């Protein structure tokens, strides 16, 4: 187990270097000159452009820029954004907001997704099952911007139940709406996934044995059935947490949440290499860690899976 974790941690290093380099190259190849773009429709003054390029290190060869960036990273320096603020500050502003929103959405997914999934899995073909099936189908087929804008207009503007945008990201009541919109799509997937595995495992031998032993139903479902059925669901949830952390660009835009998605979008638009790479670096780490946690959870859930 320990060796497995150590190996996985070591594997992160090349992945990390590869992704940051790729992103760096991609941002660099975006069309347009970010420094000249600062002048808007006015002519870019050559002396000022030269000075700014020098200040941001854009006049060096690309590989050297990348090297400077990575070596800065190991000293905890994320570089400067074109706004004149350290990228570290931008990240410190954006990530807590997105983490709050993502966790909120994640909890909604977990509770309702698994809850509904188990209920419908146990009552296959009954009315509730059909209703949930139709509901998830609808949710999956509506694009998120339609859903988000509809929810904002109806619940926020028309009925005035909540504020239409997030004005204070520490106020959980304001985060409810974007969190629900964010969660709905994955919630539909989680529900269907859980339903299927529960329904399958209900027919398994060990469940029959458990029932035959006369175990109470709560124990049969709660322990024996759930433990096995959750493996695919956990896999999905693990990657989904990474997705949520990646900042739902659309949802954050609709509800004006100053989170990661927003920051990333702005940075891409203005070709801010350091900011884009900074955000993505953190996201890569989130992904790597969450997939490691998922792998370790397998072993906990299913003793037959062992990492040698």
């Amino acid at each position, binding site marked *: 187990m320990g060796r497995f974790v150590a190996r996985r941690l070591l594997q992160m290093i090349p992945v990390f270097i590869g992704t940051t380099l790729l992103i760096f190259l991609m941002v660099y190849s*975006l*069309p*347009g*000159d*970010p420094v*000249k*773009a*600062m*002048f*808007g*429709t*006015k*002519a*870019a*003054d*050559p*002396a*000022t452009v*030269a*000075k*700014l390029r020098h*200040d941001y290190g854009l006049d060096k060869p690309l590989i050297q820029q990348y090297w400077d960036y990575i070596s800065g990273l190991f000293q905890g320096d994320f570089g400067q954004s*074109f*706004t*004149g*603020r350290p990228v570290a*500050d*931008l990240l410190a*502003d*954006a990530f807590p907001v997105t983490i709050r929103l993502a966790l909120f959405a994640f909890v909604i997914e977990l509770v309702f997704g698994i809850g509904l999934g188990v209920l419908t899995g146990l009552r296959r073909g009954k009315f509730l099952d059909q209703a949930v099936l139709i509901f998830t189908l609808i949710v999956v087929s509506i694009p998120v911007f339609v859903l988000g*804008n509809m929810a*904002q*207009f109806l619940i*926020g*503007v028309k009925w*005035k139940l909540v*504020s*239409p*945008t997030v*004005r204070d*990201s520490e106020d959980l009541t304001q985060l409810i709406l974007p969190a629900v919109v964010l969660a709905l799509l994955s919630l539909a997937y989680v529900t269907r996934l859980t339903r299927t595995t529960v329904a399958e495992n209900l027919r398994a031998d060990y469940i029959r044995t458990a029932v035959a032993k006369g175990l109470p139903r709560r124990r049969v479902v709660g322990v024996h059935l759930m433990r096995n059925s959750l493996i695919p669901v956990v896999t999905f949830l693990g990657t989904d947490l990474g997705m949520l952390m990646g900042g739902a660009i659309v949802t*954050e*835009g*609709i*509800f*004006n949440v*100053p989170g990661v998605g*927003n*920051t990333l*979008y*702005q940075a891409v*638009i*203005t*070709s801010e290499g350091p900011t884009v790479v900074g955000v993505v670096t953190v996201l890569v780490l989130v992904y790597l860690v969450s997939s490691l946690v998922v792998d370790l959870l397998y072993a906990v859930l299913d003793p037959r899976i062992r990492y040698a």
Partner: protein
Amino acid sequence: MRGAKSAKWVVGAIVVAMAATACGGGNKDDDEGSAAVDPNGVFSYYNTEPQRGLIPTNTNEVGGHYMMANMFRGLVSFDIDNKLQMAQAQSVDTTDNQHYTVKLKPGWKFHNGETVTANSFVKAWNWAANAKNAQLNSSWYESIKGYEDVHPEKGDPKADTMSGLKVVNDNEFTIELSRPVSTFKQRLYYDAFFPLPEAFYKDPKAFGEHPIGNGPYKMEGSWAHKVELKVRKFADYKGDDKPKNGGIDFKFYSKDDAAYADLLSDKIDIMYQVPNSQVGKFQQDLGKRAISQAYGGNTNIGFPLYDKEWGKPEKAKVRQGLSMAIDRETIAKTALKGSKDAATGFTPKGIPGWQDGACGEFCKFDPAKAKDLIKQGGGVPGNKVTITYNADGANKEWVDAVCNDIRQNAGVECVTDAKSTFQESRDLITEKKLSNPFRMAWVMDFPNIANFVTEQFRTGAGANDMGYSNKDVDALMNKADEAKTPEEANKGYFEAEKKLMEDMPAIPLFTDHTVAGYSKRVQNVKIDYQRQAIWTEVEVKK
């Protein structure tokens, strides 16, 4: 008799109905200026997160400018009718448009208690013009004598100060220009010419996070990036435009649709630009609280005159022909839902110096003449018009409509070429990589015809994206630059504008509108030609 009787009934019914509707519908919106006002009330204002630290000499975009415009006061300002007013200056005098004497109103204070002196201006301009400090607005000082010493094209500055700026005493300084500029007084309005306190030079970066100005509002608390920035009434403000409210909370939005939802719920009070998607229905949504009026910006199609084909002199006829194939009025009404007006030249109506008919018949819709002119000019290069634009602005609607008109009325194939970002399209344009027409827009820096004519069409001018050069037009502009009176100057620039149409380096299309709205919490909301509310005049209802 019977008829008369029933007519009476009808009249009676109408009266009753009218009374009912008057009672039912009249009280929803408070009428302008009828509610009690809270002189310390704070209102919120839609804005975008400023792209850089808030230093006036480095601010050249809307998000940051709105903060600067409230926290600072320059020498001069403009009223809502674009009339030049003295602000921090007592007087700005010149006899030859080249030597200026500026006298300040004494006793003005910065928000930190420092007194505003002549040196607050001179030192700030010298600092910002210095190439070492890489300020985005540095080119604004280029007409001041000695600018090239502090801001050479290449290499280090030879001096720290411009020889054209001299402090006479605490409340007086003189400006000498390297050539006469008749609109220099108007130019002094721009953010680049604001004063800076001594505190600025200690730590410009910290200042950018928390500016200290001399304007009617001072910053409160710290700047919550991407969320909000608050300014409050400055008790020591000496100007005439004292705020009728307690302050402003600028709320930052990344998407204007989100802000519009807040406006409908009275969560923000003023939105100077409703989203493009709502232009068709915002007047319905907001009723009396909707504003649609002229704005100092235009939208045109520029041509790459540096291109071998488009640069041929006879192609002027082709451009004029294409111009006459476009039915501007109809596009403005239908595709653009009244958010723009058909242009009569490069200068929007209502700007000092504007006269009708700069473009003359070339902006009239006449398909027969259009075809004829295009034929005379030897046809469109490549027999196809491609219009390049940036898709991240609200451009698709009008570009598609213009292309349709060209196809239908001029019989020329027309395609649109959308670039994903403004940055990308600007790069192609400024690097002169395009061989086809492109979207060209201008938002005024100060309300005057000169700003619309000279910045884009003078030989070698900074925003002359077309690479256009015509000695006669330049001569007319130079003559206007040296004119003795503003009226004479305006006339001169209009002559130049008319002359431009003979070559038509760009096709004038539309002048823009401010489409704005405000909430039920505020009244007396007036918006000027720069699309800014007269913030100090806004009244917050109790």
